[in-house]
């Protein structure tokens, strides 16, 4: 097996034993990125800087100077391009930030550096994380490594494709309505959206502030837990970050006793319209879980049907506000002089040309719903619905430890298939949105592949701050899938 195809934990073992160097691993990853450039997973790569950092780590290994906090020392990692990395571009997949160089590090980036991780590049994404297919990126679509005519999902499509295609060992994504989980599902990797407030948002370019959360994406559940260990922790720079004591998500990941746990299957997530292959794959896993003595029952989250509509009021409203600062005055793209006749035209032309269609669509929706006279009917009502959705979960979690659903109603769709039909595209997030509205942790674990060789993901939700248990059951399921060879045999 090639170095870039090993897991972070396997590589760390080899690094500690002195069997390989971080330089070799990082170099292997860059070779893969070069070979497979057509996947378009990255917007920028930092070969020189990354290899230099890898050599520094190698020296530490050599001198036995790796400290306890450097828990991913020497492991190449990809970062979504909406997270600020000092001295390098942060484009958000948008023309309007195509020339923006961040003068500061996101808290998550600092934590990765403190953990000894090697940042190899910034991954492609839907423009400002608005999209479910990676087709809205100013830097072109990302291809699904399993089948290049298909989308990798979005908005963290670049991160998902990079990890699935061995162009990174693991990656950082962000999830506002499913942007980690849906591409993880489409690309056959593990993707976790943590509880709102568990990971600092400082340095994450805001899309919808009350929904955004940074999370890990990896090929194995254990790597996902390891990366979560790196990025969590209270941050005084983020007032929405929660001050709880740090948890080790990796220790005891194997200590899990199924019979103590109750799983709910919300019936609203097993509706008609789901791809039969997806349904079948989930059923197979559930059958195995029943055999393992989990208590599994059907349950209900009655306000689920309002989630998509609710999300598409709240997220665009916040986005219209968050994206107001991109105006061509201070940084980023500015329209050429000949188009500017006054201040308004500078704003108008810059924003018209700087943003893509999907972003403009959402700015318009958000601006409209916050306008005086419409606020109560849209935004305020959406906040009330959000509360009801959250209460559905609170009630369900009084009874169940976990909820299991499909991550997405379908497998990856073809590039171009939904790009002109926003409503169809929005429905791709139908099962992932509620976790963001309720602030809950949720994970997508690969459980099968379709006839067309496209991965299928299963979503597990847990109560707030129950990531530890969530990762334990995910690891348990990952092992069943491996044991039963679900990924090899087809459905």
């Amino acid at each position, binding site marked *: 097996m090639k170095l870039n195809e090993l897991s972070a934990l396997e590589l760390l073992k080899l690094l500690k034993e002195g069997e390989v160097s971080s330089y070799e691993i990082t170099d292997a990853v860059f070779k893969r990125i070069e070979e497979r450039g057509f996947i378009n997973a990255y917007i920028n790569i930092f070969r020189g800087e990354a290899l230099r950092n890898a050599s520094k780590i190698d020296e530490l290994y050599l001198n036995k100077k790796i400290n306890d906090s450097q828990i991913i020392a020497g492991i190449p990692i990809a970062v979504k391009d909406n997270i600020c990395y000092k001295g390098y571009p942060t484009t958000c997949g948008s023309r309007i930030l195509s020339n923006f160089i*961040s003068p500061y590090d996101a808290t998550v980036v600092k934590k990765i550096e403190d953990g000894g991780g090697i940042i190899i590049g910034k991954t492609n994404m839907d423009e400002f994380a608005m999209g479910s297919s990676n087709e809205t990126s100013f830097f072109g679509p990302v291809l699904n490594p399993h089948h290049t005519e298909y989308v990798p999902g979005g908005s963290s499509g670049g991160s998902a494709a990079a990890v699935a295609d061995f162009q990174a060992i693991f990656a950082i994504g962000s999830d506002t309505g499913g942007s980690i989980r849906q591409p993880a599902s489409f690309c056959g990797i593990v993707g976790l959206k943590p509880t709102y407030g568990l990971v600092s948002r*400082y340095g994450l370019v805001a899309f919808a502030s009350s929904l955004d959360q940074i999370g890990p994406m990896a090929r194995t559940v254990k790597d996902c837990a390891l990366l979560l260990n790196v990025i969590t922790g209270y941050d005084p720079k983020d*007032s929405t970050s929660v001050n709880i004591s740090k948890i080790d998500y990796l220790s005891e990941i194997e200590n899990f006793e199924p019979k103590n746990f109750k799983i709910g299957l919300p019936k609203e997530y097993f509706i008609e319209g789901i791809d039969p292959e997806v349904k079948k794959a989930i059923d197979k896993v559930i059958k195995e879980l029943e055999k393992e003595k989990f208590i599994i029952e059907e349950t209900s989250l009655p306000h689920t049907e309002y989630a998509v509509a609710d999300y598409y009021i709240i997220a665009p409203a916040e986005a219209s506000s968050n994206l*107001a600062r991109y105006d061509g005055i201070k940084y980023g793209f500015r329209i050429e002089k000949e188009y500017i006749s006054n201040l308004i035209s500078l704003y108008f032309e810059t924003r018209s040309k700087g943003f893509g269609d999907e972003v403009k669509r959402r700015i318009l929706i958000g601006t409209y719903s*916050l306008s005086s006279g419409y606020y109560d009917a849209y935004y305020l009502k959406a906040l009330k619905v959000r509360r009801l959705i959250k209460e559905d979960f609170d009630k369900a979690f009084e009874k169940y430890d976990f909820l299991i659903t499909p991550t997405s109603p379908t497998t990856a769709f073809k590039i171009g298939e939904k790009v002109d039909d926003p409503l169809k595209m929005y429905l791709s997030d139908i099962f992932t949105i509620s976790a963001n509205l309720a602030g809950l942790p949720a994970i997508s674990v690969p459980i099968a592949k379709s006839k067309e060789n496209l991965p299928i993901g299963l979503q597990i939700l847990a109560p707030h701050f129950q990531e530890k248990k969530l990762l334990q059951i995910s690891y348990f399921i990952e092992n069943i899938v491996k044991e039963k060879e679900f990924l090899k045999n087809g459905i």
Partner: protein
Amino acid sequence: MEFEPVIGLEVHIQLNTSSKIFCNCSTKFGERPNSNVCPVCLGLPGVLPVLNKEVLRKAILASLALNCSISNFSKFDRKHYFYPDLPKNYQISQYDLPLAKNGYIIVNNKKIRIKRVHMEEDAGKLIHSEDSPYSYVDFNRTGVPLIEIVTEPDINSPSEAYMFLNILKNRMKYIEVSDCNMEEGSLRCDANISVRVNGSDKLGVKTEIKNMNSFRAVEKALEYEFKRQVELIKSNQKIEQETRLWDSINEITISMRSKEEAHDYRYFPEPDLPPIIVEKDFIEKLKETLPEMPDEKFKRYVEDLNIPPANAEILITDKIMASFFENCCAIYNNYKSISNWIISEIIQYLNKNKIEFIELKNLKPENFVELVKLVDEGRITSRVAKDISVKVIEEGISPLKLVSEKELTQLSDAKEIEKLVDEVINTELDAVKKYKEGKKNILSYLVGQVMKKSQGRANPKLVAELFEKKL
């Protein structure tokens, strides 16, 4: 038909915290453009605001000084408008749940109600240069903490607005939350004004006036605007609801924008900041630290201590001076005399040396009172008191000691004075002649000569009497 104006004020006050409201940048005024900035106040992609606790404390203190009730739950909101001095193109402010509500201050025995007080961030400054095709932005002021104070339309004359602002300013200075300097922009005031028939409760169409740079300008702008509106009504013309700018050179208001052009600010709750929860204990503790307010002091000085209002007005401008005055009053009960001597000696000394009262480290109430007492009891003359006051102020030396060392106590011994009077009569023949011819006011000159000879120690009253008797 008589008309009266109905006025409400919106006052923005910069709080004097050392760092900005949502980041650690300095708030220092007058620095090189864009030197007090960071990713947070520049609103760069990805940054988040964190509330400066000191801003909250000072905003609560200010609200308490305006007799407001503090909301134990309030929140921040985003107020959107596009302008180059506003880096995020929204301002973090407070909309429907302000920090404090329902306050008042008394102006001339009349209650002016305060509708609300809220916190917000200041914007930057545009710099337009004649010789450049570009305009420049200075973001040093961006994120400087402000409170906005909104009154009810309880003010009924431009001079009342002026007095309100003065009292407000003095209160803010007393609690040390702002220096309220309108010229430097640490206090800004917009005014809403409409007119109505005297005594009627029907409000007219209001206009908002902006761009006044002093309290006097506020008064003048309101006077102008009142006249303008009354004239429009009298000539059967419509008053437009609009925003008008005060033109301080021509002393007129000019239309800036109509109601139709008003912004839709699209307020919504700031998702990056949790609600502001203020514990009752915290409010109570701050309440206990509140000093007596300057206007209340003024009232007490005038009504209870019988201090001339002009003196009281001056005494209250400086909290430390007022407390010095009160300390003096605690040991000696000729309050009026103390107030006179503070104003004639101490204030003059401060002005002459361009220093603040707080810098008078050696001045002690007991010494100052001694000085006043010596004069009041006729033991030294005012002139002697004036001569030695500097030593009392600067060095804190006991005036009694000074006086006895230099034998400066007043000469009241008639014989000794008579000797001096005679000397003067014998030498100042011209003046004596003029006096005898009826030029009675030359007497003060003659008295002055005796005072000179006695080095100021002679009792001038006695001297004058002697002259009158002898001539």
